[in-house]
């Protein structure tokens, strides 16, 4: 072998060793895979091509001139996932703790640019000790490059962030601004500042798991969309989510063939009647409805642990991927509070950006009222949903399962806020307010002055209920396209989606709407 080739092999293998055997062993002791192991597990065998293997920092201060940082602590490249191209940047914690310096940042942001320009999804694997402070402002500049790249790619390609290790400080804005954020239990920790900084600046004493772990973000802040058991589970779930998404905003998600789904789009579901209690005040689990109407019961839930009074996620109908937005009567009456409104609005915007139809299942009494939500700004949060639905041009189908009242009727997408088709089950109650509230306002004086106010109130409530609290009144005016038996829900959704496949919407140009952010 020639000396040149020998030299080439030595250089290359040295870089591929990452931070060395000791650092790799420590990574394994933490229960994590190395960046290269993650890439190998994630991509279809033998399809990964690396870019920028030899990139090296140029810092000389603080002894860095003598410091080797293989691949600059981030492995960048592209490969195939279930046969489809995906670009990745995987931070390597074994190499100087995956710290983010000038050339690390350059590689990362250029990977996103590449994905955007080629129209393929981007998956970032975050596992970094934070900013490489030895590089000063050069590092800060690269954070700006990273943010700029990802935001200019937003809405063009799907971007998924995997928090597989630490991601603290300003760097944590990066995953939060991607479309979906997956966080690994135990190892994935994200926050604007870690416990030490919090302690010195505010005096608050808090451990890292409480401040930055799963509970913090999947339950409390809502920044984490999907919780993962470990690295492999995280990469499996990423592959699963990608199967519902298109490569970019110019095309549609791949529709599975009948042979692949083996679930009849016309399938009638006889037991759906028994899942939902007719009495409007009895709670039940809406997941039971969702899993029955979708292909093979396969539901990929987003934000499972956050704002559980509504459910969002991906599923298929007759092989077509769709986004589902549903009330959850089992939690907080399925009423929409500020968090639930944020959850729905962002999901609807994502689906609209990437040509994914929306299926909305209503069993919603309204937006949460009262001082707590009023002062948190339920009006401006609730407004995000209305904006998102009316702005959305993708096919939208709404089914009123049991109730749809007041602002939530419009907020969760009725025909006049954008639904192409709207169906209701026979015991649906579609109304501006409940009969009790309406009767006590309209007939306040009559009830008060009556000889038997209680009986009069009940009479007026019954009258209002008979007149308005049913699906027929709404259907007579065309607000509902059809009243369907619960068991025929899947059939109706699948037929409507087929018709809507080539839906077009023309609107005058504007920069964008001024959504209540």
């Amino acid at each position, binding site marked *: 072998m020639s000396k040149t080739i020998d030299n080439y092999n030595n250089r290359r293998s040295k870089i591929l060793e990452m931070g060395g055997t000791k650092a790799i062993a420590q990574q394994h002791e933490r229960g994590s895979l190395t960046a290269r192991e993650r890439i190998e597990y994630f991509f279809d065998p033998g399809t990964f091509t690396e870019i920028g293997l030899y990139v090296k920092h140029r810092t000389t201060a603080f002894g860095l001139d003598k410091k080797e940082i293989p691949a600059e602590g981030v492995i960048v490249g592209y490969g195939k996932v279930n046969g489809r191209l995906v670009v990745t940047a995987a931070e390597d914690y074994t190499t100087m703790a995956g710290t983010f310096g000038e050339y690390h940042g350059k590689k990362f942001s250029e990977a996103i640019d590449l994905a955007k320009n080629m129209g393929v999804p981007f998956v970032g694997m975050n596992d970094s000790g934070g900013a490489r402070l030895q590089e000063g402002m050069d590092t800060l500049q690269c954070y700006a490059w990273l943010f700029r790249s990802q935001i200019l790619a937003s809405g063009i390609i799907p971007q998924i962030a995997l928090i597989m290790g630490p991601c603290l400080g300003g760097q944590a804005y990066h995953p939060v601004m991607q479309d979906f954020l997956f966080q690994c239990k135990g190892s994935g920790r994200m926050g604007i500042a870690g416990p030490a900084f919090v302690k010195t600046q505010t005096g608050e004493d808090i451990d890292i798991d409480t401040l930055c772990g799963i509970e913090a973000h999947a339950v409390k802040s809502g920044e984490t969309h999907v919780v993962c058991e470990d690295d492999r589970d995280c990469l499996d779930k990423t592959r699963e989510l990608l199967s519902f998404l298109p490569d970019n905003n110019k095309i549609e998600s791949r529709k599975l063939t009948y042979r692949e789904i083996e679930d009849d789009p016309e399938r009638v579901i006889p037991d759906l009647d028994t899942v939902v209690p007719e009495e*409007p*005040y*009895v*709670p039940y689990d809406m997941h039971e409805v969702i899993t029955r109407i979708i292909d093979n019961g396969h539901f990929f839930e987003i934000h499972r642990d956050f704002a559980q009074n509504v459910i969002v996620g991906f599923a298929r109908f007759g092989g077509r991927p769709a986004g589902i937005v549903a009330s959850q*009567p089992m*939690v*907080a*009456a*399925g*009423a929409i509070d500020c968090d639930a409104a944020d959850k729905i609005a962002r999901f609807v915007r994502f689906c609209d950006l990437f040509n994914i139809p929306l299926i909305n299942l209503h069993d919603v*009494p*309204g937006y*949460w*009222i*009262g001082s*707590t939500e009023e002062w948190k700004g339920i009006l401006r949060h609730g407004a995000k949903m209305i904006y998102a639905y009316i702005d959305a041009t993708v096919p939208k189908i709404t089914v009123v399962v049991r*109730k749809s*009242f007041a602002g939530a009727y419009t907020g969760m997408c009725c025909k006049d806020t954008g639904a192409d088709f709207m169906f209701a089950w026979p015991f649906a109650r579609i109304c501006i307010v*409940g009969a009790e509230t309406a009767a006590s306002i309209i007939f306040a004086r009559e009830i008060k002055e009556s000889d038997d106010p209680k009986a009069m109130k009940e009479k007026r409530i019954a009258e209002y209920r008979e007149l308005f609290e049913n699906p027929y009144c709404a259907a007579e005016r065309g607000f509902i396209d059809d009243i369907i038996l619960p068991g025929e829900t899947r059939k109706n959704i699948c037929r409507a989606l087929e018709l809507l496949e080539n839906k077009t919407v023309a609107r005058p140009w504007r920069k964008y709407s001024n959504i209540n952010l």
Partner: protein
Amino acid sequence: MANIISQMPGKIVEVTIKVGDKVTKGQQVCMIEAMKMQMPIMSTYEGVVKDIKIQVGQGVKKGDILMEIDNA
């Protein structure tokens, strides 16, 4: 001792246990009504009801302590 907490704001429409009763995990202890929904509140602990802090007709906020369970 452990507390059973209200998961949503609303009005107490039913209390299904009394002080001294033994409760099991998952047993209904009261019912809260809000936003046209009656939400059964289940005990999240096993033990004996030591104190009931609410009565029928009372309004509660999310996070309010509804009752205390002993030996939990």
